[in-house]
């Protein structure tokens, strides 16, 4: 189907998915697992930006912070408070891990909004790895901390006894659906916004509606700025919620 759409010479050319193609950086055609690609490039830029904000920005260690230092401190305080509020005091042990996830997602989301950039977090492969890592580590933490008591998460004591098996089935299913929804939410949001912007950009080729298209792209871009932050926030806070379930499985 998509092939036919690309084959047409005239008229509107919608290629909303082409922006997600992975290309090798230094020529060549094969994409092996070690090939440096545009995904590699943008992940490296993500790391550099994180280091720039969190290390270069704070290098002066000023008591009265400069602008970049206060951004770093704000991010730190934001995630620290979130972990403490949602997962509790003992969740603070995992704070660097959660901070890593948050900084990676929020930076990649915002870098993806630069025109011509590649959005690493719009790929389900990437977000699935993040979500599965959270899922596996949370499950392991839950069993290590609580032993078999972790299974109380699925056996709800507050419910009447006949209902408990049914609830347990529902809880188990919802527990295993977590990484799916966790990853697809982020990737889907990023992909949807970028694809919609591309569709509007294709409409801009028509002279009659191009002003409308440009306005729509601007509005979508503003919405995407919001979404880029909110999705990173949501991914992080859900990680904290899952962590809380692992640390304190009794409801």
């Amino acid at each position, binding site marked *: 189907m998509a092939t036919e759409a690309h084959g047409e010479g005239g008229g509107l050319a919608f290629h909303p998915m082409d922006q997600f193609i992975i290309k090798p950086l230094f020529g060549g055609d*094969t994409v092996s697992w070690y090939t440096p690609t545009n995904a590699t490039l943008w*992940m490296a830029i*993500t790391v550099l930006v994180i280091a720039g904000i969190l290390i270069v920005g*704070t290098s002066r*260690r000023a008591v009265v912070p400069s602008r970049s230092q206060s951004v770093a401190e704000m991010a730190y305080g934001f995630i620290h408070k979130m972990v403490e509020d949602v997962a509790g005091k003992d969740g603070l042990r995992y704070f660097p891990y959660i901070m890593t996830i948050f900084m990676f997602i929020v930076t990649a989301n915002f870098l993806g909004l630069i025109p011509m950039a590649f959005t690493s977090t719009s790929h389900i492969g990437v977000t699935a790895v993040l979500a599965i890592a959270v899922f596996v580590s949370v499950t392991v933490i839950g069993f290590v901390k609580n032993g078999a008591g972790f299974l109380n998460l699925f056996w709800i004591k507050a419910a009447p006894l006949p209902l408990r098996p049914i609830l347990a089935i529902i809880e188990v299913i919802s527990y295993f659906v977590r990484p799916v929804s966790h990853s697809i939410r982020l990737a889907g949001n990023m992909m949807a916004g970028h694809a919609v912007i591309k569709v509007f950009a294709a409409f801009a080729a028509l002279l009659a509606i191009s002003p409308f298209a440009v306005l729509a792209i601007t509005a979508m871009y503003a919405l995407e700025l919001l979404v880029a932050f909110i999705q990173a926030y949501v991914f992080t806070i859900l990680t904290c919620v899952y962590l809380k379930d692992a640390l304190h499985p009794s409801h």
Partner: protein
Amino acid sequence: MATETTAGHGIEGVQGSQLASEMAGSCVNADGGAVGLPQLCGDWMGNQIFWLIVTLVVTYFILARIALPRIASVLSERQGTVTNDLAAAEDLRARSVEAEEAYNQALADARTEAQAIIAQNKAEMQGELNEAIKRADTEIAAKTAESEKAIAEIRASALENVQQVARETAAEIVAAFGGTADEAKVSSVVNSRVKG
């Protein structure tokens, strides 16, 4: 991983977009456009996952080793500074209250002292005044006495002169009547007359 799927396309030296795109895998068509969802292309997954793990590990070490301890130390240092500054401000405030009290105390002291000095001065001045008045009184009294004496002298001398004149005049008158004036008699008569 992806190596197996792409290994079969490793033909070298083939030109033309058709073949080149075939080499890139099954996810890109002849024009370089995406076939299906690029997100679901199995050839690309391994690459992304590998680089993502590299990225996450690097980020984790950057954060855990350098950034987070540094920010935490900056924040705690600031907390300490703020606490210290607050304590210092409290201290200064207490000292200013103290200083104000001391000032008020000093003011009150100065006022009472000033009252005392004023009272003392007043008393001193009163004493000096009294003394001066007394001295002036005695002086006036002395002068009065002196002038009274002078007046009495003058009066006495004037009386004498009158007696003298009267005696001489009486003697002259007696002589003019042709008598001889007895000096002692004239003088006693005149004296009695003048006194009379």
